[in-house]
């Protein structure tokens, strides 16, 4: 039986062509597999008042919109908050809601405290999607921040928790936040009635509003939430809209 004869260079060329082909295919296929989804760290968009304004508290009405939650993430969650962040941006006290997976999705009022790389949170009652709630986080003249919510049902403010740690600061930058885990988690959001607590204990309106350039970078380096944009309505109100969608959406 005749054996086909291939010279050594031809054999090398054949092997090389096959190798190149495999690598090319691998490079085409891999991005879809390796990149997949950013579940952690989180995506977050931060809106802030001017940092020269001393904020002892931060408050807003937030609409609890039931968002899609990325099923490919182990931590399926979305949230909206109001924050008082230290002037060096290293520490954060915040209150708002957190949406978790389930059938139906669950919403809880939440207050969190963050010191560098450590964070602690407390939850309270369940909330109902499709309604407006007011949230506030504030220091009571010390370095401790408490969180509250108001369901607008006539019962007033409800304490989420006053069990927070010593934050080492009593005032900082008033901010508001929209966040999510996973690129397929929705991020439509609406904050209005943004106020801050001043040194006198009063709650004036935000005098400015803009997107933070320091906070709120997503894992893929985008300043904000990929696929969504910030829509300023006034100094005290804004929406987070989906690119290409109706804006404002509510």
């Amino acid at each position, binding site marked *: 039986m005749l054996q086909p004869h291939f010279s050594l260079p031809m054999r090398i060329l054949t092997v090389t062509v096959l190798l*190149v082909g495999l690598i090319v295919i691998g490079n085409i296929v891999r991005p879809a597999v390796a990149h997949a989804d950013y579940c952690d*760290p989180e995506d977050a968009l931060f809106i802030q008042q001017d940092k020269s304004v001393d904020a002892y508290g931060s408050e807003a009405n937030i609409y609890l919109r039931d968002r899609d939650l990325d099923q490919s993430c182990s931590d399926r969650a979305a949230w909206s908050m109001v924050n008082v962040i230290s002037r060096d941006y290293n520490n954060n006290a915040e209150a708002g809601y957190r949406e978790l997976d389930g059938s139906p999705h669950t919403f809880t009022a939440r207050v969190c405290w963050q010191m*560098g*790389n*450590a964070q*602690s949170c407390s939850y309270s009652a369940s909330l109902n999607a499709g309604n407006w709630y007011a949230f506030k986080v504030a220091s009571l003249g010390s370095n401790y921040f408490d969180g509250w919510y108001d369901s607008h049902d006539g019962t007033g403010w409800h304490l989420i928790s006053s069990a927070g740690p*010593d934050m080492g600061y009593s005032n900082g930058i008033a901010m508001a936040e929209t*966040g999510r885990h996973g690129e397929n988690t929705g991020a439509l959001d609406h904050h209005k009635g943004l106020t801050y607590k001043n040194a006198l204990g009063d709650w004036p309106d935000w005098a400015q509003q803009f997107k933070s350039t320091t906070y709120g*970078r997503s894992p893929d*380096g985008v300043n904000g939430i990929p696929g969504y944009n910030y829509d300023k309505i006034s100094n005290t109100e804004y929406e987070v809209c989906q690119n290409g969608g109706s804006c404002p959406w509510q």
Partner: protein
Amino acid sequence: MPERWFLSMAVRTELAAKAQSPDTSSSYAWSASRVAIVMMTLAACLLVGGILTACSPALSATRSSHSDGGAPADAGGSSWQNPIDGVAVASLPDAQQDVDFPLVTMPNMGSPSTILVTPNESAADTVVVLQYQSSSSGLINVYEEATTMSSAEFQNVINSWVALNGQANTTGSSTAVTLSNGLPGLITTTSDGSNSDIRWIQGAVEYTIRGPSLTQQSCTTFANSLAGAVSAAG
């Protein structure tokens, strides 16, 4: 390494082809082997490119935040390159004009590569970040800012955070440390242990050292070094 391996293989292949090919077929054989070399080089480039593509999320990831309702400062959210929304100033004397305490540089690190200052703030509220590039730890952000916290108040901050370790709904950890000059410090570390930072009070100044590649050990080393320089300058 993959690129070197492919190029090495290509050279060996060429030498082997040259040794084994009779002169009569050398023209075709050499053309084929050269094509093979080009193809192998291309393969090497594609392989290296693929590795870089696979690594790019890690390379481009910024500190994710602070915040949420969720994971801590795996540190989200804020930028390592300009973590205070500051403006860069040309020199230490320029930054010194904005604060009432003496700025101190990290020993044995050379001059800061970048100096950031929060603009339009009073001296009491101004934060200065001195950035260094360390051969072992990469980017290091050294925060220096005035504080009204006393040592006792700072100790309460430390105790308060250490007490949260292991508690429900707590992520990351807090570690109380004592610097070589005897001052108390607080190290916070992400849940996966991949990143740490450190802060302490010295005089009327709060110092914080953060960076994307800092460990507990490197935090302590840098803090002891800077705290010693602050003591010497004082």
